[in-house]
């Protein structure tokens, strides 16, 4: 979560790690970083965080997931391990490790209309893809072949790639605007 922290702090946010339920209750927005979705879900289950996270997101807590974070925010996954659970929030089906092994990891430029005309330079690292976008979710970005790699549904957003490792800050800014809007109206 180091790069996410640097970007968020640079944008004026205060960042804490969430490993326990009591930490979850003190935050205005949740960022789920990259990593291994199996490892994150296993730990979340071991410490009893899956249901609280699911309830918080369903209750409107803004959440932004990158890579493994997208997987954990998806309502449905394919190519997970048996019994792998997610927190949900995005009406999408996500395919894990969709681009292959690490030698297939890549960087590329993407057009993301919601963030303005300048392309987003994105790093895809053993990345997942969005295989199906349900009615409640909206695609934010796709590769030239049409593969959806960024989605949003209300306060919940997910990207297949890592904007935080390429110095891109607009996704986090966009997310913080949602966090601020919700905090103000509450």
């Amino acid at each position: 979560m180091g790069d996410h922290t640097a970007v968020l702090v640079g944008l004026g946010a205060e960042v804490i790690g969430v490993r326990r339920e009591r930490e979850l209750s003190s935050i205005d927005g949740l960022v789920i970083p990259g990593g291994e979705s199996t490892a994150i879900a296993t730990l979340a289950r071991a410490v009893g965080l899956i249901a609280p996270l699911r309830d918080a997101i369903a209750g409107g807590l803004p959440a932004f997931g990158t890579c493994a974070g997208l997987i954990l925010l998806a309502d449905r996954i394919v190519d997970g391990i048996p019994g792998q659970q997610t927190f949900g929030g995005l009406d999408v089906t996500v395919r894990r490790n969709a681009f292959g092994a690490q030698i297939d990891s890549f960087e590329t430029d993407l057009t993301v209309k919601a963030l303005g005309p300048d392309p987003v330079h994105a790093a895809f690292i053993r990345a997942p893809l969005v295989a199906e976008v349900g009615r409640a979710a909206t695609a934010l970005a796709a590769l030239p072949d049409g593969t959806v790699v960024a989605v949003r549904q209300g306060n919940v957003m997910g990207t297949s790639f890592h904007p935080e490792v390429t110095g891109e800050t607009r996704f986090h800014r966009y997310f913080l605007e949602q966090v601020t809007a919700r905090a103000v109206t509450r």
Partner: protein
Amino acid sequence: MSPIGFRFSCRGTAVFLTLGLMTETSSPSLVGSNRVKRGLAEMLTGGVIMDVVTPQQARIAEDAGAVAVMALERVPADIRAQGGVARMSAPDLIEAIIAEVSIPVMAKARIGHVVEAQVLQALGVDYIDESEVLSPADYVNHIDKWPFTVPFVCGATNLGEALRRMSEGAAMIRSKGEAGTGDISEATKHIRTIRSEIRALAAMSPDELYVAAKNLQAPYDLVAEIAETGALPVVLFTAGGVATPADAALMMQLGADGVFVGSGIFRSGDPERRAAAIVKATTFFDDASVIADSSRGLGEAMVGISVRDVPAPHRLAERGW
């Protein structure tokens, strides 16, 4: 700055280019860049990477919450006990482990054995460990890691060694410890040494960095970068001797970004429980009550060997230069 090998890949054609500087490109896609190589290691931060010798062990590791597995034919404790020349694992074993799990699979090549590394890349492993645990193939040179698309992790006992490996292209560093002993003392020494040498650089004035580079036997540019940022530009894990949840938490408290566990899990009485306990203690490394809970009911720890009883010629950490 050291040269960086990029492979531009577009519609099935691949060209090798060597650039003096990392540059942005608008070409369709760029594979094997420093950013995606180092990036994968960054995604493993805070996690545990486990040595496994069978697909069944790999499944146990993934189910316990490992962030990656290291596919091996023999764990270091067995290499140490059996002796002989230790080489890259057989392709069939590596492929079976890749097929079993969804998390990244790493595999070891001998120090300086370029062809073992080429074979591992061809097999589709996610990371190569150029490792002192295997018998070195070259007692002078390490592998030139820049031309590879797959990233490398290398061992180091001090900052100079870490920087030499990075100048050869390593995208992740692990402190060496003394593999296969279950004795944490060398891992402690190496992570403390590296962290303390980083702090010393950060405190130096700019005109002292030239001699610091000479003393570290490391490239000046890397030394200057670390003096400015106060951190390694790549992820730093520890390895070699981690046998208990408390050992793993100790490494994290000493500033490691994550932990490799070799023989400590599958040479213990209850690998499933110990693997899960080490994962939990690594995440909650600063919470003694969680570490205490996760240390309960684990059965026998691996039988250790004190590093002081290992004659110097048999100490693996001394391999690498």
